[in-house]
């Protein structure tokens, strides 16, 4: 099953923390394609879709950040009303819980990035229902 690797990094919730992370990635010539931040009180977790996740993760760890790679699935939808609902409905019908979800639309394409407990299973189900699951390379060239 196609999965996409995201880089997750721990950051304290105070001014300048994002800048420290982006500086590290800029120095390593990492291109960021998509970013989300989930914050919880004193800290947050930043998740990034980047051109070279292994290199980005190493660069962050070298700078002392707590960073890790996560497998998620990226589903392509049509860029029109109700498209997201068809994906959500399909997963609900199979009793699959969505953890963190984000999405973006560009160049007339709409991509939904979802974290689920078992990416292979969720990806398989979506594929059976005719959805296109992106490879890492495809996700980076939207």
């Amino acid at each position, binding site marked *: 099953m196609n999965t996409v690797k995201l880089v997750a990094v721990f950051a304290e919730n105070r001014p300048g923390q994002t800048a420290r992370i982006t500086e590290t990635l800029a120095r390593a010539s990492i291109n960021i394609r998509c970013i989300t931040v989930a914050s919880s009180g004193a800290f947050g977790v930043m998740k990034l879709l980047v051109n070279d996740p292994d290199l980005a993760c190493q660069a962050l760890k070298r700078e002392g950040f707590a*960073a890790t790679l996560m497998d998620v699935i990226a589903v392509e939808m049509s860029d029109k009303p109700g498209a997201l609902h068809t994906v959500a409905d399909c997963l609900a019908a199979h009793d699959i819980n969505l953890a963190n979800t984000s999405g973006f639309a560009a160049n007339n394409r709409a991509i939904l990035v979802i974290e689920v407990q078992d990416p292979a299973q969720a990806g398989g189900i979506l594929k059976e229902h005719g959805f296109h699951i992106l490879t890492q390379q495809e996700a980076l060239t939207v």
Partner: protein
Amino acid sequence: MFWHQETETLARPALEALQLKRLQETLRRLERVPFYRGKFSETGLQPDQIKSAADMPRLPFTTAADLRENYPDKLLAVSREEVLRLHTSSGTTGKPKALFFSRRDVDNAAELIARALCMTGVTRRDVFQNMMSYGLFTGGLVMHYGAEKVGCMVIPAGPGTSERQLLLMQDFRTTVIHILPSYALYFADFLEKKGVDPRKSLALRKAFVGAEPHTEETRRNIEAALGIDVYNSYGLTEMNGPGVAFECEGKCGMHVWEDNFVLEIINPATGEPVEDGKTGELVLTSINREAMPLLRYRTRDLTSIIPGPCACGRTHRRIHRITGRSDDMLIVRGVNIFPQQIERVLMAMPQIGRNYVIQLEGLDDMTVKVELSPAAFDGEVGHLTELQNQVAEKLRAELWIRPKVDLVASGSLPVAEGKAKRVIDKRSL
């Protein structure tokens, strides 16, 4: 291994007779000091009325405040020409405390360190890197002289940049270090980040840690991280600095050199002696110092005497690691809390780093900041909030109040170069 086997294994009656002889000499010396002369005449006490250690409670205490009031040199028991060296304590408030050494005192302090190093197997073949601050702090020079007495090659590195410490260790094949426990933990992290495996690329085999109270878990963490043996030590400027008590190879308590110090444990509130095994305030009398002996000095360090003999054969009694200072106890919401209790909880949780800060603010709000271990991070915010709750719950079980816990990034809490500053009190009480 013994540096001076006869003294170190002296039978108790002979050791106690030696103590008494030296105590009486010290009392005669102290009659030259107006402060003590005043105290003796107040009570009508004559030095020869002290016939055994059981008479100690008849003698007056000396406190940190007495040292400050008599600053700079009013407690000096010899003439100025006989003084070879001055050290002062790392006083946190107001005037420092000054301590003078005669030539014999300098040599004798080194002798006590030599005994301590030798009993853990340090020899003249060792390379001793002293990572404590030099200057007025005794942890630098006093330890330095002791290691030289053993015949080690001593590297007076002082504290400071970890890059330079590592370079010295690599280039000169350092085998023994003297280091603050908080810095040892930080240095282990530094090596990990550099990708240096101390077991493979360094020759380290022992560390002597002291000058900060720390827990058994901290010792084990340092030992595991650096692949070495870590020995606890106890000392204070007022009693020569390091060298009052050190661990032998058994690592089960620190032997107090009782031929040099009379050891008492008292109830800090009443001043009454407590029985062996019970925790109380350590009170020390220096009985083998010339320039500035002190009588029944209230160290404010809390410990207990470990009853019974030690397997190493030394007859000098052992004290437990310091469990706190009678004056660094915090009172939060009416509960007595020692920072060491918090340290003990945190050190037992691998998901949490080694450094921490206790912050008190508002009317009695306690926040404990802890560092997330990078290895424990899996990208899930939910797991992090769960971890925060878990830490808070374990602290509640230990302290009986539930602090707020903030998870912060590894390496973001300050590492003090001197004694670690763990408590920030900004309360508006």
